[in-house]
Each structure stands twice: as C-alpha cells, then as structure tokens.
C-alpha cells in the first residue's frame, strides 16, 4: 500500500489471491481424479473383456448419459454467460444465468441418480466386483463435485439476489465459474472413459 497525495492506493496483484487459491484447489482435484482414472485404466486395460464376464448382462445407459453430458456442457456455457454479464455490470442477467445453470446442474444430478437406481436394480452395486466398484467410485466422486458446485452456485445466486456484486466486485462469481467449468470439462473425459471405452 502506498500513499500518494494523501490518498491510499492499493496495488491490485495481476492474479488475485482468490483465483490463485482456486487454481491450487483445482490442482489438488486434478490429482484426485488422476488417481481414480489411473485405477480405472489398470482395470480397463488389464481386462481383455470389458465389462468383465461376471457383468456381461449389465449395460450402462450410454444414450441417456450422452444427453446428460450435453446438458452439463450447456450449463458450462450458461455459467460463462453469467460471468460475462457481471463483467458488464448486468446483475439481473447474472441472476438469470445462474438460475439456469443451477437448474441444469440439478437436472444432471437427477438424471444421474435415476440411472444409478436403475443400475442397482439390474445388479450393479458397489460390492459387485471391480466393475461396479470403480464405476460408482469414479462417477460418484464426480457427482459429489457437481453437488458441491451446485450448492456453491446457489450461495452465489443468493449473494447476487442480495445485490452483493458489481463489475468491480465479483470474486465469488469468478471462483464459482472456474470451479463449475472444471467440473463440466472433467465430465466428457469420464463419460468417454467409463461409458464408451
């Protein structure tokens, strides 16, 4: 902090602390998912037939999950639009985009949940061997991240409703957007690996 002509001038760092913190958090998240994907690769490449013979009859819902993937990708776009809206000081648009993004996130989780219920009814459980185990751990871990992103998003939406953001002050929107985009960008990789490979 410097003093020039009796006015305090705070030098803003080129990269804010909040952004740096979220980058480090995402680095840790990336390592977590790398470990899980690494475990999946051991089983997937290590098995000549996939799913293993004990799970031959169980089909993962590829088409529905494909549509769900599209919904999540759209939510990434709507989140980005919200971020752009607050940069233009348009709080009303930010609220609308956040609401749409949250609804899409909840829809994604709802469809994912109904798929899981169906799969459990078909006999694919966490205890039903390595296929079920790695499927629920990997996809479930992502679902937990989407859920936490949705909770975070609704907190940010509440703050937007309370008029806490402007074009100069939107750190919470910024960090929430980065996290959301990470969660969205991760999903197609998991979808291709788990559902299509």
């Amino acid at each position, binding site marked *: 902090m410097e003093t020039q002509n009796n006015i305090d001038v705070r030098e803003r760092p*080129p990269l804010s602390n909040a952004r740096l913190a979220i980058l480090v958090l995402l680095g840790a998240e990336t390592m977590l998912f790398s470990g899980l994907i690494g475990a999946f*690769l051991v*089983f997937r490449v290590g*098995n000549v037939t996939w799913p293993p013979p004990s799970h031959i009859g169980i089909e993962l819902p590829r088409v529905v999950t494909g549509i769900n993937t599209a919904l999540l990708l759209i939510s990434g776009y709507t989140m980005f639009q919200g971020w752009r809206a607050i940069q233009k000081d348009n709080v009303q648009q930010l609220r609308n985009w956040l609401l749409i993004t949250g609804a899409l996130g909840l829809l994604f989780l709802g469809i994912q949940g109904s798929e899981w219920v169906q799969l459990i009814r078909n006999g694919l459980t966490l205890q039903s061997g390595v296929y079920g185990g790695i499927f629920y751990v990997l996809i479930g871990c992502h679902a937990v991240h989407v859920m936490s992103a949705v909770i975070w998003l609704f907190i940010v939406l509440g703050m937007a409703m309370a008029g806490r953001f402007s074009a100069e002050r939107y750190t919470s929107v910024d960090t929430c957007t980065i996290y959301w985009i990470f969660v969205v960008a991760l999903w197609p990789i998991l979808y291709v690996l788990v559902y299509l490979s």
Partner: protein
Amino acid sequence: MSRLFLGVTLLIVAVLIVPTYLEACPACKTLDDPIGKGFNFSILFMMAMPFVVFTVISGTVFWHYRRASKEPMD
C-alpha cells in the same frame, strides 16, 4: 529460435538412440499380459499429471503477470 531447434534436435536424437521403448513399470516390463499393460498405462498417465498441473498453474500465473505488465499505467 535456434534454442528451440537445438532442443527439438536433441529430443529426436535421444529418442533414436534409446535401444528399446520405455516401460513405466520395470516389474511389468517382462509381463506380456494385459495387467502389465494396464499398470503401464496407469503409471504413465499418473506420472504426467503433476507436470500438467504445475504447467497449468505456473502458466496461468505467468500469463496474468505478463498481461498486467503490458497494460498501460494510470
């Protein structure tokens, strides 16, 4: 430019003189079964990730500071 050329040339030479292709896991090298391949893929993937994470974080910090240094002073 010349440094880049030198780096690429050294890399190509290094790849050419390696007598056999590298395996991530020495214990799995002798295994010719899918499990060995699975471990190899997994280890190579997980080995690469810290470098990716470090590159992305440091690249982002570098990009922000570079952009700030180019902005006109008030």
